[in-house]
């Protein structure tokens, strides 16, 4: 087949497939994670381990911020139905800061899961002490209710 025929053919196929997703409705593109499903459902969470110390590290390579590196909490997820939300909350009263990470259990699935916490940066001026008391929570949100799966203290260790 002549090269330009191949190219024209490919262009035609792409165009046809594209238009098929339009008002003709021949192919329905799925919606991004159906939002009405978020928070609906249920799961049984057993907490395996949670961090006791959380490093607050000074930036490397000349970066002059502090970085909070919260270790992952490990939980067992069972009897999962729907898409409940698990919040990993951190509250540092002395600094007046609260941070939270959101996890959708539908994406994680059942079994042993590592619930991570997104690193966050703080300005140098915000950090004065060598350590801070913090409060950790794991909260399960299902069908409009909140269940605190775990709560306890942790110590933030400032590392230069």
């Amino acid at each position, binding site marked *: 087949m002549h*090269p*330009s025929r*191949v*190219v024209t*053919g*490919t*262009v035609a*196929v*792409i*165009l046809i*497939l*594209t*238009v*098929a*997703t*339009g*008002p003709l409705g021949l192919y329905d*593109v*799925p*919606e*991004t*994670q159906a939002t009405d499903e978020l928070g609906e459902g249920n799961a049984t969470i057993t907490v395996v381990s949670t961090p006791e110390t959380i490093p607050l590290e000074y*930036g*490397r*390579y*000349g*970066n*002059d*911020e502090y*970085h909070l*590196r919260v270790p992952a909490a490990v939980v067992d997820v069972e009897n999962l139905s729907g898409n409940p939300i698990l919040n990993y909350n951190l509250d540092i009263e002395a600094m007046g800061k609260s941070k939270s990470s959101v996890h959708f259990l539908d994406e994680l699935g059942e079994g042993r899961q590592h619930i991570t916490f*997104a*690193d*966050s*940066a*703080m*300005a*140098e001026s915000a950090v004065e002490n060598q350590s801070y008391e913090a409060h950790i929570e794991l909260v399960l949100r299902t069908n409009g209710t909140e269940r605190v799966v775990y709560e306890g203290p942790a110590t933030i260790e400032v590392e230069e």
Partner: protein
Amino acid sequence: MTARGYRHRLGRLLFRDRLGLTLFLGVLCVTLLSWRTGIVINDNITLRETLAALADGHVWIEPATGEYLRSPGTGVRDGFVYGRNYGQLVLSLPALWGLQILDALADLHVALAALWHLLVLAFVVQLGHIRGYRRMAAYGGSGLVLVSFLANLAVATSFDPSLSLLALQMTAAVAVAFAAVGLYRLVTLRRGRRRGLLAGVGLAAATPAMFWGLVPKRHAFSLTIVVGLLYAFARSRRGDGTVSLPVVGSVPVYRAGAYALVALLAWIHAEEGVYLFLALVLVDIPTAPSNDRRTLAFVAAVFALSLVPFFVTNLFVAGELLKPPRSVFGGFFETGASGGGSGGSGGGSGGGGSGGGRSLLSVLVALLPSQAVWVAGNVWGSLLTGVSGMLDTQNMYNTFVHSSVENVNEDVGFRGINLSVLEAAPVFGAALAGGLAGLSTHVRNRDWHLDPVVVFAAVLTIAVVLTKAGRLPLRVQVTVRYLLPVYALGVFLIADSTIGAWLSDTHRSLAVWSYAGGVAIGGQLLFLALVFGDFAVGEAARLHALLGVALGLAVAVTCLAGLADRRFRSAAVVAVGLAAAASTVFVLLAGLYYFSFTGEYILPVVDFVVDRLPSTG
């Protein structure tokens, strides 16, 4: 002429030749790989809303009642909220209309992915034409593109982004691609196609230009207009700088074109337009082939005509002919008062006010003199600020050589990326050697005629730096974005110099392999280090900075050595290749990793992969 004939003529006009077209497509495809639907910098919101307003048929965004838009860059006048950068917005209107049509025809996510794949197919086909393997390009390219498109179709989910934002991004990306083509044409004019291609690819690969192609601020347009300016200037100085028109005879189109481009920039950002106008006049008038009355009349006529959109916009937005939209925000030149602030309000009230005189003639007659004084005062004040900024050596060092950490961290959330010019484009270490090479040629031949194009490039560089020197360091710069045109000028000067010859002629394969190896191997190593070293983005930024300075230094040293002794040229070429690779890796990481949180990717597969990468701090 046949349809094919018109197509060829248009192609030649836009891209010069097939190589230019291929370059354009390649740059566009790589840029759009990182295309995301979100906002990176806050005043994108202003531009997005103003464009939507323009599409609805009015220059104001909304009435300033109740809860109205207050994003950075908006200003309120006479009870209406106005935006800025109207020139850029009007240029983005065709893209917006195209997107609206696409949205009606098909699922937008799929349609945009299809568009990208068609661009890639076009790129591969054109590449096949140039390199002589048409069959392989056609079959292989079609196969790969089809497979990739099907994969994207499989993971696509529909989304609902702002069409105005997408239109702004598309137009900016196209502008950057044209900047690469512009450099290609400029250097080809002077040194042949190989060097031209080096310049075009160099802009995309060795500078952060592609990053700014997706952030819809004016910088992509300033970049392209400056390149266009230099090209028009160069073209006008050659024998073929004139065109014969039916009634008027032989006219200097390229010279006039340069002034038209300045007017276009003024429509987008008045202050930059003024500086570039001064730069152009300073170099154009003394070095012009002829300054007879007919030539000057033609140039002046074209310039005046090109300024009409600028004047009309000013009239509608700020109410006065010479007051650009930014004066509504507060002050003519963004800072508010640099000697001209009080004069501004005086000029307004003295000139009969914004409400009166809708008749254009009466407006001109009544306002022009006081307005001119006001403008002159502002320009003078701004120049003084700029010059004093340039004389601040610490500031200039931080901007051009090694960035200082203190400049950024007012806003801890913004990822702390604030690279200096050298750190973002380490290849500029070769600038010194390139300059010396040029100088030594002059000395050796005892020829002191200065090349007007090189002089103009130098003057443009100073002009661009002056626009912001007095106000640097600023937050949220990432790669000194206000000086983006300087990157293009730097690439031009290096590609045009002897160093360029090493890269594109004598040591070509070494250059290509060093670059490819740097990106493929160095890029992956860096990425692994980022992930396993648990780097926060702020730390990664400093790592890039250190890498940039180190490579820049290596480039500078090896290039100087290469000038002295040709045995060092291989080392210099390797250094430049690696330096360019560092820039490319930064742009790719910035688009696909550091800023991946700003919206969904247009390409579903990219979205899919990036979502599964370990996230940064």
